[in-house]
């Protein structure tokens, strides 16, 4: 399997990933303390982390792309 470029990740990926991980930790810690077992188990716990990072990451990346398009083509976007 070819290795991805490790020196430079996709634009915005690190920041958007960080946000995704922060959301996951927030959900697990606060939601876990309140709901306990339905969140804090071997299936839903890791699934929450994966879902948060992928969803938040992709949303952030899409926003970043839209912002880039706007700045590149200000007439088209207006």
């Amino acid at each position, binding site marked *: *399997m070819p*290795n*991805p470029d*490790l020196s430079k*990740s996709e634009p915005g*990926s690190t920041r958007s*990933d960080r946000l*995704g*991980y922060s959301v*996951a*930790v927030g959900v*697990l*810690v*606060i*939601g*876990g*303390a*309140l709901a*306990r*077992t339905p*969140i*804090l188990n*071997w299936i839903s*716990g*890791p*699934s*929450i*982390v*994966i879902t948060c*990072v*992928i969803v938040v*990451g992709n949303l952030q990346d899409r926003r970043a792309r839209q912002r880039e398009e706007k700045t590149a083509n200000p007439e088209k976007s207006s």
Partner: protein
Amino acid sequence: MSWAAHELESYVIRKHIKTKVSYLAILLGCLLPDLFTKLPVYGLHIGNVTYIKASFPAKYHRGWPGVGFTHSLLLPTVFALLILVFKRNRAWALGLFVGIWSHVLTDCFDSVGTMLFFPFTTQHYSTGMWAYASQAGRYGDAAAYYSSLGGVWDFLWLLIVLQGREVLTRKYFFEKIVPEDPAWAWLKRKFRMSDRAMLVTYRAFFFYGGSRIFAWFIWARLLNPLRGTQKLDLTWKGPHWVQAVSFPARSFGSFMQNTAIGMTGTVAMFAACWFLFVRRLWQRAT
């Protein structure tokens, strides 16, 4: 029993094994002894009715008769052998072996301990660092664990992983973890996983394990309705407000005798397995 330690130890083990080994196999090994045995320990609650609950959870979970053999040094050998026979994959055989071993050894720290040398002896080996309290139910057990040295034990594992945090980096994952295990390439192909999805799958148990410590600690110490009586007790074999289950030897002599029998039997079994067929299987595997 250890709670988050089982999720976190997989990263520490992977970092310190210098030969080719599968991280996924280590993780599976760390979870395997409890994976199919934990449900009857607390029971399945539907409404006000409890199903499939063991009458003596500690005996069922760690003892004999029960499923205590899942917490012995024998089980990893069986799984590693099955992998060598059917998949011929050294990285997975070794990963499962060390993963299960680490779970079994980590569980030696509570008051019940594990039957390390089963089936040669049913002697339990325990340091008695914190009270095994599964008989108090899931939430009673959580309150006891995170009010005792068990919680400190989990924090310690979190600190150990953070101290060697390079194991969590993107570079480490794509340069060390992925090339050593064909399962990642299969996952990528089968589920069309992006690099982000692969990396978060690898890190998921770290974030889950770490967050779980704080969530349970917050519940046990701040939200638990019984926190007034279930106080923080960081003494050995604490907390003393719960009955610590243990299976000690009848006498020191009996302990030594059981240990001698168990250790000799286990070493002889490992040696016999190695010379009779494991060595050949290992050489045949890739």
